[in-house]
């Protein structure tokens, strides 16, 4: 655990905006003016690009592709060393050779979502009209827009049907949107720790995070790239607040309790006396090293707007009408951000649509974050579900 003072941050790297256009260690699919991305906001994004990673080999009949959708603060580096943090991929527990999503068997694709900041076009990318970073000129995007862009990426790669789409949290929302928007392109779907709509409480938490960013004087109305500033404090506070919602009271208590950080007694100051404070500060600070504040605004907004039933006359089951997709819905007992009740509502709608659905709730005290952590039951369920789907799809054991 590192104790860090928020005021003594290193300067933003000079190549930050350029990095947004030219990501390190990723593949790029560019879509010219002839292939605009039609957005729910009623405008077109063009030209744009998608940064993505792939693992494994696409088989001859192109039937073993698995799309991984990342969460709010995730990116395409699902199963490799992260180029910025130098940490292992965010889902290396689940994706890799011999893992439940076995890269010796499946061709795994993980794109960075539209609006993010790791190489796919987003608010920190260069606006071709001005030559400057988009900032708040960037159109507001939705989960459906992200999925539309991913469908264009699949067209670009020549993949008609995905063997599976998997993701947790915001990634799970994309999985659901995939199944609703492109049912024939999704053979099996794993929406994990997510919901078919963002709750009022979750929108409220997001608003606190956004206000923290906008209240930072360095945010400069979103023009911080141009003005050479960076709303680190605001983004760090947003992350700290959000991070609490990813854990649980029990997990925080188990991990930190009321333990002091490197001291015997309270200092009678506002230092990070408690371990939990120090931990949160570290989470905030390490986050700003790899994430763009405006992207945080756009992606949280996309999640807030997500309400799958609203797009289908208020009847969630209609979103999955006639679905041939095999679903595996997974929730975690201590996840209070996307509680099991949300997954249960999803399952009811899928049942009402006569979809083939499996639903498992995993007992853990690790909260929402559990989907990213070492949860052997999660691994067994994902592996078993995909094995069943693989037999039904007639895929060979190894690609």
């Amino acid at each position, binding site marked *: 655990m590192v104790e860090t003072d928020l005021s003594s941050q290193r300067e933003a790297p000079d190549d930050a905006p350029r990095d947004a256009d030219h990501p390190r260690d990723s593949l790029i699919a560019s879509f010219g003016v002839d292939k605009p991305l039609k957005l729910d906001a009623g405008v077109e994004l063009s030209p744009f690009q998608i940064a993505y990673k792939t693992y494994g080999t696409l088989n001859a009949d192109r039937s073993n592709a698995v799309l991984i959708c990342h969460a709010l603060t995730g990116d395409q580096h699902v199963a490799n060393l992260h180029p910025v943090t130098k940490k292992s991929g965010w889902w290396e527990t689940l994706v890799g050779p011999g893992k439940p999503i076995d890269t010796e068997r499946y061709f795994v694709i993980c794109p960075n979502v539209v609006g993010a900041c790791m190489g796919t076009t987003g608010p920190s990318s260069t606006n071709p009209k001005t030559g400057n970073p988009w900032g708040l000129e960037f159109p507001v995007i939705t989960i459906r827009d992200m999925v539309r862009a991913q469908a264009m990426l699949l067209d670009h790669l020549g993949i008609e049907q995905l063997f599976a789409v998997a993701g947790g949290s915001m990634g799970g929302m994309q999985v659901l949107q995939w199944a609703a928007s492109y049912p024939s392109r999704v053979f099996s779907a794993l929406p994990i720790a997510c919901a078919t709509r963002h709750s009022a409480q979750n929108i409220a938490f997001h608003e606190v995070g956004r206000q923290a960013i906008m209240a930072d004087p360095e945010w400069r109305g979103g023009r911080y790239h141009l003005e050479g500033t960076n709303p680190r404090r605001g983004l760090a506070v947003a992350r700290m607040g959000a991070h609490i919602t990813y854990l649980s009271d029990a997990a925080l208590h188990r991990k930190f309790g009321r333990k002091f950080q490197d001291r015997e007694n309270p200092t009678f100051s506002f230092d990070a006396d408690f371990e939990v404070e120090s931990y949160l500060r570290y989470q905030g600070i390490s986050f700003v090293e790899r994430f763009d504040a405006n992207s945080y605004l756009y992606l949280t907004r996309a999640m807030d707007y997500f309400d799958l039933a609203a797009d289908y006359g208020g009847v969630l089951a209609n979103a999955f009408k006639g679905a041939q997709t095999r679903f595996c819905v997974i929730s975690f007992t201590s996840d209070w951000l996307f509680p099991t009740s949300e997954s249960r509502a999803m399952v009811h709608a899928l*049942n009402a649509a*006569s979809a*083939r659905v499996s639903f498992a709730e995993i007992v853990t005290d690790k909260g929402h974050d559990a989907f990213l952590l070492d949860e052997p039951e999660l691994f067994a369920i994902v592996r078993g579900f995909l094995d*069943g789907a693989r037999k039904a799809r007639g895929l060979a054991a190894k690609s």
Partner: protein
Amino acid sequence: MSMPPREKANLNVVSIARTPGGARIDLVMVAEMVERGVKVLDVGCGDGELLRLLSESRDVDGRGIELSREGVNECVAKGLAVIQGDADTDLADYPDDAFDYVILSQTLQATRHPRVVLEHMLRIGRHAIVSFPNFGHWQVRLQILLFGHMPRTDMLPYSWYDTPNIHHCTIKDFRQLCTEVGVKLEKAVALNAWGSPLRLNAPWWFWNLFGEQAVFLLSRKD
């Protein structure tokens, strides 16, 4: 998620007869009543043994509901389409005619509203298959008559205070319910203590006395 204290209600059969191949005889009986290649919902599917048997021997498209989390997670890890749910509350969410067969195997006596469950089964599916332990079996009768205590048998191994089985019935009682609900009795089989089917031409009173468990195939009357 608070669940009623009825976990593993359907796993109450501890020492049941098995075929030489290792399959539970009552499940084989159920499976034999199912046409090939149909769509089946198994309510209270336990660890998925019947669903697996159905998919392997009858080539069915099977789905399951199971109350216990352990059962559900075990099923999903086997690649079966199973969700966590409660027969008493969750059948209402299924649309009419969603399945060809709805199966309730060794679970009827653990439901809160057996009649409502049965009605839902025949709304959701064209056919229903119900198997249950027969409370009219002579051993059960004898234990109350001679010893004056609640019966405990291989089929019903629980003490009165911790049993998940809250609605016991006899074969006769169940036939009565079928008449009241107005369903058509297509086929019935009673199994003796060794898991062998009783003589088909035996009278109902004989089944009710010597059948340790029964399997009923029902369909809508119209």
